[in-house]
């Protein structure tokens, strides 16, 4: 077997059934791996919309044929299930070292069904698979769980993915994290699904070598890609500060979410950016398996230590909620990493509450006395503690911003920044039109990683004309050409998710495309791949996702953005006055996809 480990694992936590199956090569060639393989499996298996937190929901853990190989920056793992937060396709991916270790243990996909009567964890090695008791781990945070399992299993090379108390308590945006809480499966509440199954963790360890079909060819392609990464103009910056470089980048574009998207320019960006973070708290670089960018960092502050943070949590707990105190933000982010809460979703519930109070729609009495003022980090710490335990109003906040705002009503819904129930990421779509369209149509709700249409920021007009028929596709304020850009970018990101390659490298640094992907897959697996077929498979998968979401109850009218982005111009800065006409772009996107004007794919 080349590329693939060659097996998939099926575990039923209800009756403790464990079965290992050989991978069906004809099937896997059409689904490749990672998120793509998981979603196809979900499409085949979930013929009705099961309750996401019931034993009937299924967890799919997928890696790909090139995970753990020489291909740099390709160590992602995707966890999928129906999302308790959105009711739609749920999935989240994380890098680190878990994915390659799962391959070394001999598996490409793990499917987990049912619900355990007692808290349990799954131990997967190439010698055995066991469901083990985890009552002694229940209640522990993710870092403690990781350490306890390393001690219990007496092997420093074991890799652990675990949930924290938030997942146990079914917080609907609970995360799973690996690498000692350093790398997070962040979005759509996959941690709550594990919690509902009483699955505390998966520990993996393997010693089975990974082979490729044509080592010389494969090494040559990987060598060329590694060289392109290192020669990329952003390489040094990404290596120094990682994704936190975006604080400055977005602020200069006037689209750094500030005071809950009321502004796009943050006057204290210099106090919260990647450079000051590096200077004050970073001790060294960290990296996912076989990555040559090393964009992650290890921080030590007087309040604690750990890997991170990435840009999204950093912005969520600084400018987005009006906080200029970097140290306090880091304290909160470390807490969330360990307790297993998604920073974007939780940050939005808080930003929403702060704006509701500022606008006079609600007051502190509506929140059990918690003073949600912009920048009030005492309130932030207080509510997060309530959220992870689902105590008091934390129980409501744990449902996500859409449900929270519906509960309070009275016009507060308009301020809830989400699409389809998934909270919007940190990048104001008014000054980034392709990203805005991406949030509106992404198959898991307001997500930037489904399309990551970085190209619109490049200003490469000639290339834009060649690829998308208009130079405007490379200009962030323009809307023309953006549906075509998003359609292309979604396919490319799906390819990256199937190969389990990091989007910061594969997409943002333009390392991967279907031509290179097909070559790598062929050299890696020995199966025949070509670029055209691969592109078709990717397009077909995107339409399958749409059908699956419609099955789950998606309303195409929700392919949109919150009111503010469509109606209120940004007040100042380089993007002043910008709004986004997202609904027209969505229609054009449907047309390109071959879906009806109502957003429904043809039967098939």
């Amino acid at each position, binding site marked *: 077997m080349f590329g693939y480990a060659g097996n998939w694992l099926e575990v039923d936590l209800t009756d403790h059934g464990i079965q290992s199956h050989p991978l069906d090569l004809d099937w896997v060639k059409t689904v490749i791996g990672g998120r793509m393989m998981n979603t196809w499996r979900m499409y085949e298996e979930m013929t009705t919309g099961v309750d996401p937190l019931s034993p009937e929901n299924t967890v799919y853990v997928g890696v790909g044929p090139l995970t753990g190989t020489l291909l740099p920056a390709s160590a992602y793992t995707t966890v999928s299930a129906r999302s308790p937060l959105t009711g739609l396709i749920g999935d989240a991916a994380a890098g680190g*070292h878990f994915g390659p270790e799962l391959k*070394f243990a001999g598996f490409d996909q793990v499917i987990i069904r049912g619900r355990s009567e007692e808290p349990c964890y799954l131990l997967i090695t190439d010698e055995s698979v066991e469901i083990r008791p985890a009552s002694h781990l229940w209640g522990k945070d993710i870092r403690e769980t990781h350490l306890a399992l390393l001690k219990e299993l007496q092997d420093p090379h074991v890799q652990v993915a675990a949930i924290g108390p938030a997942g146990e308590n079914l917080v609907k945006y609970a995360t799973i994290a690996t690498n000692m809480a350093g790398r997070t499966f962040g979005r759509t509440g996959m941690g709550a699904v594990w919690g509902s199954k009483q699955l505390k963790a998966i520990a993996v360890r393997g010693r089975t*070598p990974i082979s490729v079909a044509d080592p010389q060819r494969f090494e040559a392609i990987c060598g060329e890609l590694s060289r392109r990464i290192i020669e990329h103009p952003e390489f040094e910056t990404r290596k120094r500060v990682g994704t936190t470089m975006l604080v400055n980048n977005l602020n200069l574009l006037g689209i750094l979410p500030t005071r809950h998207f009321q502004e796009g320019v943050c006057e204290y960006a210099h106090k919260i950016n990647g450079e000051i973070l590096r200077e004050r708290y970073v001790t*060294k670089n*960290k990296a996912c*398996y076989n990555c040559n960018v090393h964009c992650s960092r290890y921080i*030590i502050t*007087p309040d604690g230590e750990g890997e991170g943070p990435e840009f999204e949590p950093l912005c969520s707990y600084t400018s987005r909620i009006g906080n200029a105190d970097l*140290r306090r933000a880091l304290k909160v982010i470390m807490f969330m990493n360990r307790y297993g809460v998604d920073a974007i979703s939780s940050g939005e519930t808080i930003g929403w509450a702060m704006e509701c109070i500022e606008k006079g729609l609600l007051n502190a009495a509506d929140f059990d006395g918690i003073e949600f003022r912009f920048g009030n980090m005492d309130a932030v710490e207080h509510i997060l503690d309530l959220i992870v335990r689902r105590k008091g109003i934390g129980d409501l906040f744990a449902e996500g911003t859409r449900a929270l705002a519906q509960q309070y009503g009275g016009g507060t819904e308009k301020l809830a920044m989400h699409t389809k129930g998934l909270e919007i990421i940190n990048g104001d779509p008014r000054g980034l039109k392709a990203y805005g369209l991406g949030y509106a149509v992404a198959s898991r709700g307001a997500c930037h990683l489904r399309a990551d249409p970085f190209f619109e920021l490049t200003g490469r007009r000639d290339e834009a004309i060649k690829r998308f028929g208009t130079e405007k596709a490379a200009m962030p304020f323009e809307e023309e050409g953006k549906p075509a850009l998003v359609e292309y970018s979604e396919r490319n990101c799906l390819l990256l998710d199937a190969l389990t390659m990091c989007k910061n490298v594969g997409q943002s640094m333009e390392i991967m495309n279907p031509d290179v992907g097909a070559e790598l897959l062929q050299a890696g697996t020995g199966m025949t791949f070509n670029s055209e077929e691969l592109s078709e498979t990717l397009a077909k998968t995107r339409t399958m996702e749409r059908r699956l979401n419609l099955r789950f109850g998606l309303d195409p009218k929700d392919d949109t953005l919150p009111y503010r982005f469509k109606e209120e111009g940004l007040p100042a800065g380089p993007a002043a006055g910008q709004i986004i006409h997202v609904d027209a772009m969505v229609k054009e996107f449907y047309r390109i996809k071959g879906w009806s004007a109502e957003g429904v794919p043809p039967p098939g």
Partner: protein
Amino acid sequence: MIRVDPELCSGCRRCEVACSSSRFMGMIERLFSRVQVVKVEEIGADVPVICQQCRERYCVDVCPVQALRVGDRGEVLVDIETCTGCDQCEKACPIGAIHLVDQYPLVCDLCGGSPRCVEACTMDALSFEPETSDVVLLTEVDSVLLSEKTTEERAYLYGITMAETLRKAWVTNVATDRDSDR
């Protein structure tokens, strides 16, 4: 020798991947690699463990059939015809830098002069010093390290020893910064 600077190591394990892949026809597995990255996750440290061409030469000395010798660049070379796969060299190395795979000892031989691990490391945590060897002394620490039973445990303990020194410096620096700031 290959000089290791754990302060720069990000724990990506590209060295392991490059070593394994280049010497085992594209196959990748930790045990196929002659360099092992010890990840001391609880303190954020990562330490590549690789033959330090120590002055003591525990492995060469212990070999009952003289299958190991020191090459021109200080590297340990294994004569596969003579080696009986007895594993005494593995047991003798205090830092766990030599181990047997299919009864054949794997130890860094500098890839004949252009080490692939060093080439793969984009953090400069590994650097090749062709003129240097026999400078690292392990006698001071060997009794502690050799108390560990398995090769992996010895490598891990060596990694922790290196990491703890590093960490003291980190904590001091960070604390100073903070106080002046606030």
